[in-house]
């Protein structure tokens, strides 16, 4: 077939030279600073050398990474399912939308820290607290994004679809869902970075596992090297998740020019 797509290689993590250079400059600057610290009157633990950080990275416990990752992914999936279901219900019923919209707006205005405190005060279980905070923060984002996207599916396409008389379910599955896939991906990308940042704060309170917990331990030990190491892990985790989403997105959105 002449139109069988020519598959371009997907570059997941590309490192242009500029990125490499700027990272290198930053590392050199950091290393120099760490050696100059005593001269500058900065306590030595504040700016650990790269070697010290590398040692910290070597001691990182994979179980904490797995736990945090599981919490993030689990909560994101729950948020997505909930958000999408609510968006679909609100798309079908204007009345429901009128009642729910203010509440959702209210939820989105509440600071994350407040949610964490509420969670601690309301719920006994640590996992449930973390899950609650993540879902309450990410769910509305999914909902608002997908509802918006459904609303902006062109009238022409909706009419065309209707003219072939689908059932309500067919209408959603064959038109609405595929039409909002690009938005769903954007929403996932936003929510992944949001969830990674929120989960660590949530884990600071009361969790005995996870990256957030390890960060609080590092802080108690005044170990900047450990904080640094865990932060690197977090950033790497975020990049990895984003890369996975980008990859799936590229596959699914091949139909776009």
């Amino acid at each position: 077939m002449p139109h069988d797509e020519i598959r371009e290689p997907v570059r997941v993590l590309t490192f242009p030279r500029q990125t490499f250079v700027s990272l290198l400059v930053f590392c050199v600057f950091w290393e120099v600073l760490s050696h100059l610290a005593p001269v500058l009157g900065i306590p030595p633990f504040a700016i650990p050398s790269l070697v010290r950080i590398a040692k910290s990275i070597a001691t990182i416990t994979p179980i904490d990474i797995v736990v945090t990752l599981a919490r993030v992914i689990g909560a994101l999936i729950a948020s997505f399912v909930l958000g999408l279901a609510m968006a679909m219900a609100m798309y079908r019923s204007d009345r429901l939308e009128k009642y729910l919209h203010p509440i959702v707006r209210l939820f989105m205005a509440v600071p994350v820290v407040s949610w964490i405190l509420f969670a601690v005060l309301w719920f006994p279980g640590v996992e449930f607290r973390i899950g609650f905070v993540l879902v309450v923060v990410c769910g509305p984002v999914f909902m608002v994004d997908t509802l918006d996207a459904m609303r902006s599916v062109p009238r022409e396409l909706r009419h065309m679809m209707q003219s072939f008389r689908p059932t309500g379910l067919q209408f959603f599955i064959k038109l609405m869902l595929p039409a909002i896939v690009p938005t769903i991906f954007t929403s996932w990308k936003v929510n992944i970075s949001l969830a990674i940042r929120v989960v660590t704060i949530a884990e600071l309170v009361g969790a005995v596992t996870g990256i957030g917990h390890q960060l609080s331990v590092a802080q108690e030990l005044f170990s900047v090297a450990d904080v640094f190491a865990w932060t690197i892990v977090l950033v790497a985790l975020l990049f990895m998740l984003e890369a996975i989403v980008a990859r799936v997105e590229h596959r699914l959105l091949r139909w776009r020019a």
Partner: protein
Amino acid sequence: MSVPPPIDVRGLRKVFWQTTTGQAVIAIDQLDLTIAPREVLAIVGQTGCGKSTFFDLMIGLEAPTEGSIRIGDKYPHADFDHFRGKIATVFQQDRLLPWRSALDNAKLPLELIGMDEDEQRKRALTWLKRLGLGQFTNAYPHELSGGMRQRVAIARAFVVQPDILLADEAFGHLDEVTAAELRETFLALARECGSTAILITHQLEEAISVGDRIVVFGKSAKLLADIHVAQWPKSKYALLREAIQFTLQNNRLDPRLKRIGAKAKRKKKR
């Protein structure tokens, strides 16, 4: 090949309430029209006279404000599910789903009636081939030209072999040669399928070449003229075109249309 049911429009009225101004727009007012099975009908009328609204009512997207459209003994809005796979529309823009290949677009209506997967593919392929798209079944809409996309849209309408085919300015946006070619194909296929076909058009040439019957809508879908083209000899087509033009411009029936129609009737009686 089953005979499509007749279409009977009685006292049809459609009023829209404009949300911004709160004013009523009478899109269709007291329309009476009967369309026989397998008739090929062209509707002409000035912009905003309610042609597309008439189609929306035929499709069942909207309910009539008053009066009714009856197809056989069913109503397209009230009996929405009954007409699944029986009415198909080709729109002005192709309205293909951009995430589906030509083949998947063409088989969409078959998916909705729950046909067997293999059969869907087979049928869609057959129709795409008939429309000259055998080479492009895997192409996405953005990889096709406007004319090719409209061909896919036509294939999509024909896959279900509908009783009633609607085309709302389906060829208006294409260049003349492509439009004429596609119109020919469309009409030939419609006749072959034995479907009733209704075409909305702006172009009188198109309306006349369509064949059986031309109805001219005035404002609010007022029926200004109902012309049976067969009653006109080919040599009088120029006159016919002029008379339709006059009717459109003056929003009233051109007397010349009356006379010829009457003459033909008298001839028939004898």
